C-alpha cells in the first residue's frame, strides 16, 4: 500500500499536506505524532472513510495492488472490505452475539453458507487470540466481554472478511496493560498474513510491536524508517524531541 501526494481537507483546514509513504507488506507500521498532526486522518483516508465526514475531501492517490482506491471506478464499500479498520474504543454491535459480531461483515457480503461462516468465525477468533476464551460462549452478547476481549472481538470481526490491510486507530488506548499485551501479541502474529498500520500515542507500544515507524507533524510526514533506527537514532530533530519528550 502506498500514498502519493495525499492531501486531506476538512472544510478550510488542510489536515494532510501531501503524504508520500510506502507501507511495507506483512509488516507493522506505526504512525506517531502529536495530537492534531493528521495521523488519524491519514489512516481514515487509507480506507476511504475520511470522505464520509461532511465537508471532507481527499486529493492525491492511495495505491493498493497497483490501483488507486480513489479512482472513480472503484467501489468504496469493496475497498473497506479489503482494508479493515479497528477503532480506538471497542465497538461491538451491541445487540449481536459474539458469533454474529464476527460474521456480520461476511453476511453483509452475501455469505450464507453456515459451514463457511462457522469456519471463518473460528479462524478469525483464533487469529485475534480470543477463541479459547469465548469458544463456549459464542451465543453471549459481544458487550458481555471485557474491554480487552471486546477489542479483540473487533479485530476478529475485521479479519473475518479476509482483508489485505488492517488499520488500527489507537486500539489499546482504552485497555489495561494485560488486555493491551494480548492485543499487541495478536497484532504481531497477524502481520504474518496482513499488512498492519497502527496509529498510537504510546511510544513504547510503537517500539514493541512495529517494524517501521512514521512520524508526522503538522500534516506532513517528518520521518519514516525502521522502528529500531527511529528509536535509537532519529534523523530528524523534531522526531528526537517528540520521542524524548522535549517537545514544547
Amino acid at each position, binding site marked *: 500500500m502506498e500514498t502519493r501526494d495525499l492531501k486531506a481537507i476538512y472544510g478550510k483546514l488542510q489536515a494532510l499536506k501531501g503524504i508520500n509513504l510506502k507501507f511495507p507488506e506483512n509488516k507493522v507500521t506505526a504512525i506517531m505524532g502529536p495530537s492534531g498532526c493528521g495521523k488519524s486522518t491519514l489512516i481514515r483516508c487509507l480506507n476511504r472513510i475520511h470522505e464520509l465526514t461532511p465537508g471532507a475531501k481527499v486529493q492525491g492517490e492511495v495505491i493498493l495492488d497497483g490501483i488507486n482506491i480513489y479512482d472513480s471506478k472503484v467501489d468504496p464499500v469493496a475497498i473497506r472490505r479489503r482494508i479493515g479498520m479497528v477503532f480506538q474504543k471497542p465497538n461491538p454491535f451491541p445487540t449481536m452475539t459474539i458469533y454474529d459480531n464476527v460474521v456480520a461483515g461476511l453476511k453483509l457480503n452475501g455469505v450464507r453458507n453456515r459451514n463457511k461462516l462457522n469456519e471463518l468465525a473460528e479462524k478469525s477468533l483464533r487469529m485475534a487470540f480470543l477463541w479459547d476464551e469465548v469458544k463456549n460462549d459464542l451465543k453471549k452478547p459481544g458487550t458481555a466481554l471485557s474491554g480487552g476481549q471486546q477489542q479483540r472481538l473487533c479485530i476478529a470481526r475485521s479479519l473475518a472478511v479476509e482483508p489485505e490491510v488492517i488499520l488500527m486507530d489507537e486500539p489499546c488506548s482504552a485497555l489495561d496493560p494485560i488486555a493491551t499485551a494480548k492485543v499487541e501479541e495478536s497484532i504481531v502474529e497477524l502481520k504474518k498474513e496482513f499488512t498492519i498500520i497502527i496509529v498510537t500515542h504510546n*511510544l*513504547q507500544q510503537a*517500539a514493541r510491536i512495529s517494524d517501521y515507524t512514521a512520524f508526522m507533524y503538522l500534516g506532513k510526514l517528518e520521518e519514516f524508517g525502521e522502528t529500531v533506527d527511529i*528509536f*535509537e*537514532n*532519529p534523523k530528524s530533530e523534531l*522526531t*528526537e524531541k517528540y*520521542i*524524548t*519528550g*522535549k*517537545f*514544547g
Partner: protein
Amino acid sequence: MERLIDSGLEELTVMVSKMGGVAEKALSVSINGFVEGEDLSKSVHELSEILVNRTVEVEEKAFSLIAKYQPVASDLRIINSYMKVAYDFERFGRYAWDISFVSTRFNAKTVKCDKWIFEYIEKMAEKVLQMVRVSINSLRRLDPELVKRMTEEENEVDKTYFEYLDKLVAQASVTNECTISSVLVVRYLERIADHAMHIMEAVVYVATGEKVTLR
C-alpha cells in the same frame, strides 16, 4: 522544559565524570610510581576499588532510569554509553593497579633498567595519559572533535609498543626483572590506550548516533 528523566541523567553524568577524575589520578600515580621507583600500590589499589564500586553504582542508576522512563534516542544512547564508559574507567583503575603491582612485585627500588628502557616507557606513558585526558574531556563535553587526533595518537602508541618489543629482543641480552616488568607495563599502557579509544567511540555514538570502531 525540564523532564522527569533529566535530573537522573544529570546525576549519571556527574557520577561518570567523577569516575574519569579518579581513573586519571590512578593512572598517573601508578605510572609515576613505576618511573620513579616508588611503591604506591596501596593508594592505587584504593583508587581502583573506588572505580569498581562506582561502576556498580553507575550500572544501578542506569538500570533504574531505563526501568522508570524507558528512554529512547539520545537519552538511550547516553545511558548505554555511560555504562560502557564506566567499565572503561574501571579497567583504567585495574591497569593502574597492575602497573603498581609490577613496581611492588619486582621491587621498584632495586630494579635497574637501562636508560633507554625508561625513556621508552616514559614516552609511551606520556602519550597514553594524554589520550586518557583527551577522552575524558571529550566525554565531559560530548564532543567528538578530537577523534582524528586520538586515532593518530593510538597508532603512535601501538607503533612505540611494537618498536619497544623489537628493540628489547635485539638489545637485552638476558631476561631479568627489568625486562619482564617493563614488558608488562608497556602492555598495560597499550591496553589503556585502547580503552581511551573505546571512550571516544562512545562520545561519537552519543553525539552523532553513529557506531564507529576506531581501533
